[in-house]
């Protein structure tokens, strides 16, 4: 059943024509957004969906006791770990894969099927990763910025990664059946909880900013590049990179090169 609905999602996304192959961003362009008008239309759709459904539901869910919603977010985070282990291995990140393996083992057993997070309480946190990062490690360019229906901000590379992750997820072969059966619902529910917990921030971006599309795009790209750069070899090679000279530039893949200097601006 799970596979069915996942395939349906992937199929729906393919129909939208978003897996068009990663185009290479021209040099010196930090935001590559050739599909901006389409993206803006999808952004409008996503905002409508949020205000009509996701926001009100999440506001209600987050009223539940934390003990309860924590179980949901813990469970959802736990079932994502086998996929992260696989991606860690594909990236040659043995340490990250090992950490996530131990986390999954601890939380699935002592943490009662992942409802609790004893690993995190002991300081063993998730090494977040996905196939989008694997592609980045393999040298696939970021491609154009995209806003996907329901799923939100992405890049061509991350969209491909998202779809591949649906198919290579080893959870079904590793965890008990009930983990897989509730996987999709738990992941969706967990995202609703997060939407509720961080409502002020999400609302400020979606509904209070002057151009919510531009703001979401900027936030996503910066955060994603930071996440991908932070774990890669050579990230500390050039802390005084060229981005420093251009106050308009977004930090590149190297999170330590993108220093904005407001004093230099005048």
């Amino acid at each position, binding site marked *: 059943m799970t596979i069915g609905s996942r395939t349906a999602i992937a199929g729906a996304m393919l129909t939208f024509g978003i897996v068009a192959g990663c185009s290479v961003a021209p040099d010196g362009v930090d935001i590559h957004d050739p599909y901006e008008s389409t993206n803006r239309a999808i952004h409008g759709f996503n905002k409508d969906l949020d205000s009509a459904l996701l926001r009100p539901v999440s506001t209600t869910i987050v009223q539940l006791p*934390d003990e309860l919603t*924590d179980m949901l*977010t*813990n469970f959802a985070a736990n079932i994502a770990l086998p996929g992260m282990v696989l991606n860690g291995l594909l990236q040659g990140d043995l340490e990250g894969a090992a950490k996530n393996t131990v986390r999954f083992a601890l939380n699935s057993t002592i943490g009662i099927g992942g409802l609790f*997070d004893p690993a*995190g309480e002991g300081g063993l*946190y*998730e090494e*977040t990763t996905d196939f989008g990062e694997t592609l980045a490690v393999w040298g696939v360019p970021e491609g154009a910025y995209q806003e996907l229906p329901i799923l939100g901000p992405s890049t061509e590379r991350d969209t491909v990664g998202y779809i591949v992750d649906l198919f290579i997820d080893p959870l079904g072969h590793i965890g008990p059946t009930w983990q897989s059966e509730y996987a999709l619902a738990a992941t969706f529910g967990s995202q609703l909880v997060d939407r509720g*917990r*961080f409502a*002020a*921030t999400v609302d*400020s971006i979606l509904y*209070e*900013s*002057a*151009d919510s599309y*531009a*703001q979401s795009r*900027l*936030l996503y790209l*910066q*955060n*994603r*590049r*930071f*996440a991908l*750069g*932070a774990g890669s070899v050579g990230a500390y090679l050039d*802390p*005084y990179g060229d981005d*420093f000279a251009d*106050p*308009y530039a*977004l*930090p590149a893949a190297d*999170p330590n090169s*993108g*220093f*904005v*200097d*407001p*004093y*230099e*601006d*005048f």
Partner: protein
Amino acid sequence: MAHTLSRREMMMIAAAAAAVTPIGASAQSAAQARTLVDSVVASINAVIASGKSEAGMIADFESIFDRYSDVATIARYALGTDARSASRADLDAFTVAFRGYISRKYGRRFREFIGGRVEVRGERAIPRGIQVETMVVLRGQAPFRVDFHVSDASGKTLFFNIIIEGIDMLLSERTEIGAMLDARRGNLAQLIADLRTL
């Protein structure tokens, strides 16, 4: 008649002077930056722990921002190229309005940090001053990184940027203020008036 420097020329000279001034890589300014961020973090932790109302937290945050950050520089950067054509009076009015706006905007989110804490991890030199790295630890979540960029270019040791997991406050605010100005067809006076109510 003596040649008087235009404002733009003066600013270029000031920028050039700033560029050749040794950037705070010395142990002393690293220590100062660390002390500043320690103070900011202690104040933030106190606000988080205070359990005050949202309005109270926003007021506290405004005073933290006022005391420890180079608001004038942040405001001018957010305004971008429009700052160059603005009059001194407009720029001052914008700075005051911007300070209130940004304090309310970030202060409103403090609720999300209740039960959490901020830990200072270390500092290092960056092209303009010192980057002080902190980790924010929230309940039930992997800690995330928040960096403060600190400089004494204003004459005092103040922070001029906050980077949350790679998300840069200066860039976000320039995007935001730019979009707000566009929506008002470049009318700065209108923007200043509206910022006071946001």
